[in-house]
């Protein structure tokens, strides 16, 4: 049941041409004792109908957040994806093509990436963006490596209010480059304590990472952090939520040197956490230090505009061990999704996504404030995700809410014990409506108090 198309007769003719009598002769270089004995022990092959049935039943065992009232976030969001995004992504010209090595027959992919780069540049207000990274965490790791290479320094300050999973990825990446990460704890209000930042910076750091909003959903004083970093000759790396950039100052406005972020919100399904889209943008002066593919406009020999991959001498296939990064396959199709998403919604539509997320989340926040047993430790300084503390263990609250059809948030206690075992991270996107927020309120009123 493979997709092989050669017939028995084809195979016979081919062996004849090769000048051998049986396929076995081609396995000559593999000495017999190395070969698999008795075949692979796998399940029997399936017809298409059977595989559809089998995977359909696996899918049926899941209860997807997208079909429920989800307040889960923490890096992956349940957003509305317009139909044109799926239409474009399901065109085989895009999804079955390879990396555009032969530019002349890959202008579709190349122009799409060029447009994606432009969109990311505009969103972040940075000079230029690359063609994508695996996800925000590896993009951040790479940006840290890049900053250290630029600065020839080895210490980077990282906020504690960072996704614990992103942090875990950094921790596995940076030792290879002998980089030290140093924590920047959050202050009372949940944001960076500027004095600590200043103090730690003085000790010769390569960069400061700013998460905007931070993992607690809170908006940092980006401009001030940026000034502190630059005053000490360190770079500012901004890790941003792309949707927030429709309302919050983009990295370019506070003079960030590198901006990275997770593009899943831009038209990519939650998909159990992958594939994602790491975006990265930087100042032009650093572009030659940047990892990943870059597409540039150029001209053909007749003077016609066209697009090519460029600055490939940064990349592994040319520069091997001297490359800026080892990345090869990236997330091109996800970058295409993001581009189609942004262009479909357009200026107003995208602003509306941000505005609805902002205002709906604040509406829920206000509904929850004052409910006995619920506390909101960090105030209203958030974009669309906030910390709620209930007076029962988070697990119990979540279970209760689930029975009402609500996925009420992410429990924070394990990763951030200081927040207490009743702490939750609650994300509100444009997909939620008032009735759902009211349901949340009612559940919280009934359960939050521990009753």
């Amino acid at each position: 049941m493979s997709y092989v198309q050669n017939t028995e007769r084809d195979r016979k003719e081919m062996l004849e041409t090769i000048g051998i009598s049986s396929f076995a002769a081609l396995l000559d270089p593999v000495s017999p004792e190395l070969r698999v004995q008795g075949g692979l022990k796998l399940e029997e092959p399936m017809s298409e109908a059977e595989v559809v049935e089998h995977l359909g039943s696996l899918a049926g065992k899941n209860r997807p957040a997208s079909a429920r009232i989800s307040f889960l976030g923490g890096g992956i969001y349940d957003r509305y994806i317009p139909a044109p995004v799926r239409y474009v992504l399901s065109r085989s010209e895009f999804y079955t093509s390879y990396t555009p090595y032969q530019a002349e027959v890959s202008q579709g992919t190349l122009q799409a990436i060029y447009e994606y780069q432009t969109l990311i540049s505009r969103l972040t207000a940075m000079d230029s963006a690359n063609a994508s990274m695996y996800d925000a965490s590896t993009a951040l790791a790479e940006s840290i490596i890049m900053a250290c290479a630029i600065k020839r320094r080895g210490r980077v300050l990282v906020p504690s209010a960072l996704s614990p999973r992103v942090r875990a990825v950094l921790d596995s990446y940076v030792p290879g480059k002998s980089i030290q990460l140093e924590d920047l704890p959050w202050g009372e209000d949940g944001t960076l304590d500027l004095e600590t930042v200043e103090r730690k910076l003085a000790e010769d750091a390569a960069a400061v990472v700013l998460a905007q909003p931070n993992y607690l959903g809170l908006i940092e004083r980006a401009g001030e952090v940026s000034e502190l970093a630059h005053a000490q000759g360190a770079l500012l790396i901004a890790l941003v939520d792309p949707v927030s950039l429709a309302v919050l100052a983009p990295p370019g406005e506070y003079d960030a040197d590198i901006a990275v972020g997770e593009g899943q919100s831009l038209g990519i399904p939650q998909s159990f956490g992958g594939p994602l889209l790491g975006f990265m943008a930087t100042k032009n002066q650093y572009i030659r230090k940047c990892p990943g593919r870059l597409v540039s406009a150029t001209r053909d020999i007749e003077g016609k505009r066209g697009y090519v991959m460029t600055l490939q001498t940064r990349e592994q296939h040319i520069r091997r061990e001297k490359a800026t990064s080892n990345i090869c396959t990236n997330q091109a199709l996800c970058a295409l999704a993001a581009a189609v998403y942004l262009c479909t919604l357009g200026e107003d539509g995208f602003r509306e996504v941000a505005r609805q997320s902002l205002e709906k989340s604040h509406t829920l926040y206000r509904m929850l404030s004052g409910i006995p047993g619920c506390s909101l430790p960090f105030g209203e300084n958030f974009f669309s995700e906030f910390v709620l503390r209930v007076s029962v263990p988070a697990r119990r609250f979540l279970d209760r809410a689930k029975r009402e059809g609500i996925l009420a948030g992410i429990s924070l206690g394990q990763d951030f014990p200081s927040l207490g075992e009743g702490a939750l991270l609650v994300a509100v996107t444009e997909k939620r409506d008032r009735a759902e927020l009211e349901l949340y309120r009612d559940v919280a009123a009934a359960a939050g108090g521990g009753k």
Partner: protein
Amino acid sequence: MSATIFEKGKNGKSHSYLPPHDCPLEKLDLPGRRKSALDLPVIGEQDLIRHYVELASKNYHIDKGMYPLGSCTMKYNPVVNEELARLEGFNGLHPLQDEEDVQGALELMYNLQEALCEICGMSAFTLQPAAGAHGELAGMMIARDYFRDRRENRKTVLVPDSAHGTNPASVVTCGFTPRTVPSNEQGLIDPAVLERETGPDTAVLMLTLPNTLGLFERDIARVVEIVHRAGALVYMDGANMNALLGIVKPGEIGMDIMHLNLHKTFSTPHGGGGPGAGPVGVRAPLEDYLPVPRVVKEKERFSLRQRADKSIGRVHPWYGNFNVFVKAYAYIRTLGAAGLREVAENAILNANYLMKKISQWYYLKYPGPCMHEFVVSGKNLKDYGVRTTDVAKRLLDYGLHAPTVYFPLIVEEALMIEPVETEKKETLDRFAAVMERIAEEARENPSLLLEAPLTTPVRRLDEAAAARSPELCWSGEERK
């Protein structure tokens, strides 16, 4: 050329997509509001669709024709797998949902891991790495932490000169020092040379099998023995596993760590450059070093084990490119053992057949039998002033895609050809005929090649100018 979407979407009118906003808030004092323009295009849906359809029409793709890019394994991407990957039961899952709500997803990942273990003869697999290079890096991290725990300060990773560029780059990213091992006359690792290069500082031999010349390392048993005797590990770049399915299990022949490219061997599409997935498998002693979380099964229930003391930690914030797993899993279940073996056999047969034909007109440095791919050289055409790049561009004029060129580096004017198993003889014959024709043209009328391509949406592009002063972003008008 197609105008950019920015030009088309200047002051347009767009459709309305979003849920209603039933919670407007008048007063909301938010610090740090955006001041600068967003400058997103505004375009009607019809023109948006047309834009992308126009771009699409300028792409070569598998559903159009053969894609003989060596090392890339551009095989057919079954359409049913795309449908399955779009099921909301998969697509709509948040990674932090309760385990009881994602049992089907965990089961799929578990089954896929198990299948990969069986196919590769490894003890355990992680699905986390998002691509092959990412897998290499994870593999190197495993080696790093393994030696750290053994308190062995080994810093060198041996890399054959034919290796893919990601190999040395991954080595460096992980803090090791790569050391190149030259290939011998046959394009293979010379055990004597390897013996010499291997020492107490050697952490890993990073080997591609079959190697990027498409050759199986005949002395692999000796090679493994040398490395293991030195206390080092063998890492296998399994991007070429397509050739070995059901024929060789890397774990059984001594590979300690390996990665696979699901987007090559297991038919998931390349998406114009990604996403892929690069699972990493290890032999038993290294199992504890795999990234967390790991999917485990206890009495028909699946869960995510979050901790493992020796684990390298995470290389992905979640579980990897899940959506890609769905397709690879569907593929493996469709083919089963017999189908996978059929893949390998036909990949090898197709390559040897095409090698036999094409080596009539192009120089073949390493005669076969090859495995799933082979490398010829265009150097015999140099006398006519023609380079491999010109052959590649001329192929485009015939409506075909070019092979990989100028890689591996050890072959002058390399043309690396991987026909893959899903192409049938007739298609290979046509490709060979065009290659013959082009060789003739090189002799008879080289300008046909030098000026190629003529029939593509654009002619040859000025890469040098782009590199000199890249234009990475549309500024609102065309640069002169």
